[in-house]
C-alpha cells in the first residue's frame, strides 16, 4: 500500500455564533491515495464544501479548524502560517469552484490569469508562461487557443469557461485538486464533457481529485471511492461500486433508493422521512437515528465510528459484530 497523499484525521470545524458554537464538521477522517478520485457526496449543508475549504485553508470567517489534523504527503498543513499555506495552494493543491462566471476575473484576459498563476509557482519567464498557457488551453479543448488566449472570460460559453478554470487549477501541476461542484452550474449536456475532461487530465498527470458534489450520477461515473457525508460527519466511505450497488449505511441506502431507476417504472419514489438536522440541533448518538428505520437503543446513546461493513466502512452500529445489539423488538 502506497502512502496516502492526503490524510485527514478527526477534523473539527467550528463556527462561533451568537447562539453558541456550531460544529460544521465533527471529527471527519479519510485518506486520498495518489492518483485516486475520491467523491464526497451529501445533501446541502452536510459539510462537503466546508471540508474542501478546510483542506485548502480558505475557511470563511468566523469558521475555524478547532481540532484534528490535515496532512499532505506526510506533512501537516492545517497549522501552517499564511505564507506557507499560500505556497501550497495552487502548487500542491489546486481548486475548482462551482460558478465559472464569477470565478474568473472579468477584467483580465484568460491568458493573463493563466500566466500569473504559473509564474507565481514556477520559475519561468513571461514568454514561456504564455506558451504554456496556450498549451493548457489546447489541453482543455479550447479551439483556436492561440487567439483565445487574449480573450476575456465573458467571451466564452459556460462550458468553455469551466474548462479554463480546470486549466487554471492544473497549470501549476498540483498533486491534489479539490473540485467543489464543478459541473453543477453547467448545462446537463456539457456536464459529461467537462467531467470527462477532468478525469482524463488528472489521470494523465497522476493528480488526485477530491470531487465534491451532490450528484450521485457524477460520482458513479468518475470516482474511485466515495465518502457520504451527513450532518458534518462521514456516514459511509468505500469503493464506488460497493457503495452504489450495495450501500451499507441506512442513509446511503435511502439515497440510492430515491434515485429513479432506468430499468423499470416505480409508482412512488421512496423518500427518507424527515430532514437533515440543523447544526444547532444534531441528535445525540448517531446523527441519523431519528430518521433511520433500523435504529435501536445504542444509536441514540453513542455516536458510531467508521466500522468495517461488507464492501465499505460505515458509521453505523448495525455492523458492530463485537457488541451484541439489544433490539427494541426482538
Amino acid at each position: 500500500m502506497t502512502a496516502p497523499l492526503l490524510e485527514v484525521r478527526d477534523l473539527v470545524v467550528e463556527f462561533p455564533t451568537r447562539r453558541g458554537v456550531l460544529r460544521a464538521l465533527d471529527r471527519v477522517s479519510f485518506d486520498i491515495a495518489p492518483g485516486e478520485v475520491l467523491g464526497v457526496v451529501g445533501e446541502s449543508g452536510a459539510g462537503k464544501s466546508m471540508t474542501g475549504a478546510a483542506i485548502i485553508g480558505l475557511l470563511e470567517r468566523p469558521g475555524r479548524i478547532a481540532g484534528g489534523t490535515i496532512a499532505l504527503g506526510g506533512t501537516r498543513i492545517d497549522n501552517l502560517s499564511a505564507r506557507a499555506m499560500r505556497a501550497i495552494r495552487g502548487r500542491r493543491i489546486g481548486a475548482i469552484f462551482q460558478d465559472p462566471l464569477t470565478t474568473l476575473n472579468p477584467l483580465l484576459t484568460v491568458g493573463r490569469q493563466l500566466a500569473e498563476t504559473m509564474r507565481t509557482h514556477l520559475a519561468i519567464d513571461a514568454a514561456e508562461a504564455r506558451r504554456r498557457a496556450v498549451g493548457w488551453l489546447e489541453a482543455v479543448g479550447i479551439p483556436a487557443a492561440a487567439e483565445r488566449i487574449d480573450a476575456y472570460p465573458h467571451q466564452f460559453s459556460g462550458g468553455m469557461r469551466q474548462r479554463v478554470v480546470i486549466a487554471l487549477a492544473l497549470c501549476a501541476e498540483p498533486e491534489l485538486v479539490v473540485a467543489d461542484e464543478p459541473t453543477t452550474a453547467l448545462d446537463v449536456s456539457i456536464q459529461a464533457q467537462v467531467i470527462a475532461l477532468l478525469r482524463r487530465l488528472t489521470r494523465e498527470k497522476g493528480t488526485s481529485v477530491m470531487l465534491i458534489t451532490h450528484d450521485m450520477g457524477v460520482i458513479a461515473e468518475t470516482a474511485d471511492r466515495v465518502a457520504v457525508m451527513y450532518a458534518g460527519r462521514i456516514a459511509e466511505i468505500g469503493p464506488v461500486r460497493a457503495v452504489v450497488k450495495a450501500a451499507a449505511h441506512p442513509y446511503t441506502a435511502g439515497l440510492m433508493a430515491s434515485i429513479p431507476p432506468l430499468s423499470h417504472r416505480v409508482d412512488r419514489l421512496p423518500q427518507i422521512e424527515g430532514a437533515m438536522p440543523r447544526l444547532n440541533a444534531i441528535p445525540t448518538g448517531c446523527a441519523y437515528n431519528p430518521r433511520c428505520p433500523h435504529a435501536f437503543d445504542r444509536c441514540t446513546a453513542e455516536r458510531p465510528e467508521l466500522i468495517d461493513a461488507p464492501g465499505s466502512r460505515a458509521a453505523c452500529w448495525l455492523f458492530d459484530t463485537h457488541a451484541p445489539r439489544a433490539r427494541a423488538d426482538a
Partner: protein
Amino acid sequence: MSAFVLSRVLQSLPVMLAVAFIAFALFTFVGDPIANMLGQEFTPQQRDALVAALGLDQPVPVQFLRFVGNALQGEFGLSYRLSRPVADLIAERAPATLELALCASVLALAVGIPLGVLTGLRPRSVLSRALMALSLVGVSLPTFLIGSLLILVFAVWLGWLPSFGRGDTVALGGWTTGFLTASGWRALVLPSVTLGLFQLTLIMRLVRSEMLEVLRSDYVKFARARGLRERTINFGHALRNTLVPVITIVGLQIGSIIAFSIVTETVFQWPGMGLLFIQSVSAADIPVMAAYLLLISAVFVTINLVVDLLYYAVDPRLRAGRGH
C-alpha cells in the same frame, strides 16, 4: 465604438432640451422682466419698445427657439441686479470657481483613494477604525461649518491663512489665475480643503466598501486558491476591479463639487460663479439663475458622457457588446 458615442450624445440631447425649456420658462414667465429691467417708472412706449426688442410679443415656441439660439451663442441677456451682460459676469467668475474645483478634486482623489484602499485592505486595524469614525463625522459636517471652523482656527486664532478672497491673481488672456502667486496659493488652501473634505470622505468610504465587496468575491477566492501573492491579489485584481465602479461615482462627484462650491464661495467670499448664483437667488435675478442652470447642466451632461466613455474604455465586458 463610435456608435456608442453617438447614441450617448443623442441620449443627452433631450435632457439638455428639457433643461433649456425650464430655464426658458423661468426667464419668460417668472417675475416681470420688463419691470425688472426698466425699474419703477416707465412709459408705455418704453415698455413696447423693450417688448419688441426682447421679442416678448412673439408666440412662445418662437421665443423658445430664440432663447436657445441666443444661449448657443453665449447670449443670456442682462442681469437684473447688475445690469451687465450675464455672459460677461459668468466669464469673469468662471476661472475662480474652476481653479477651486480643480484643487478640491485633486485633494479629494489624491487623499481619498489611498485612504480608501488602506481601510479596505485592513478593515479591522486601529487606523482604519479611527479613519472610519472620522469620516462619519466628515459626512455629518455641513460644508459651511467646516469652512467656518477652519477660518476660526487658521485665520482668526493662528493667523496663518487668509479667510476671504483669492489673493493676488495674474491675468492670462481672458483667464485670471491664482496659481502663479504665493498669496494665490495661500488663499486656495482653506477653501479647497473645505470644498474637498466632503468628497474626500465620500470617496474614501466608497473605495473601502467597494474593496471589501471585491475582496469577498469568487474570483478573489479563486485567486487565493491558486496561491497568488497577496500583493498581486490586492493590486492586480482587487484594486483594478474596485476602481471601475469608483470611476463613475467620482466623475459624478465632480458635479457635486461644482454645486458645493456655492457654499464654499459664500463662506470665503470667493469671487466665483457660485457666489454670483447665490447673490442672484437672493435678489431673484432670473437671467443669471437661468444661465447658471443651463451652464451647469451642460457641464453635468458632459461629465456624464465622459464618465460613460471612460467606463466603456475600462470594462471589456462593455466593449465586446453583450456577453454570452
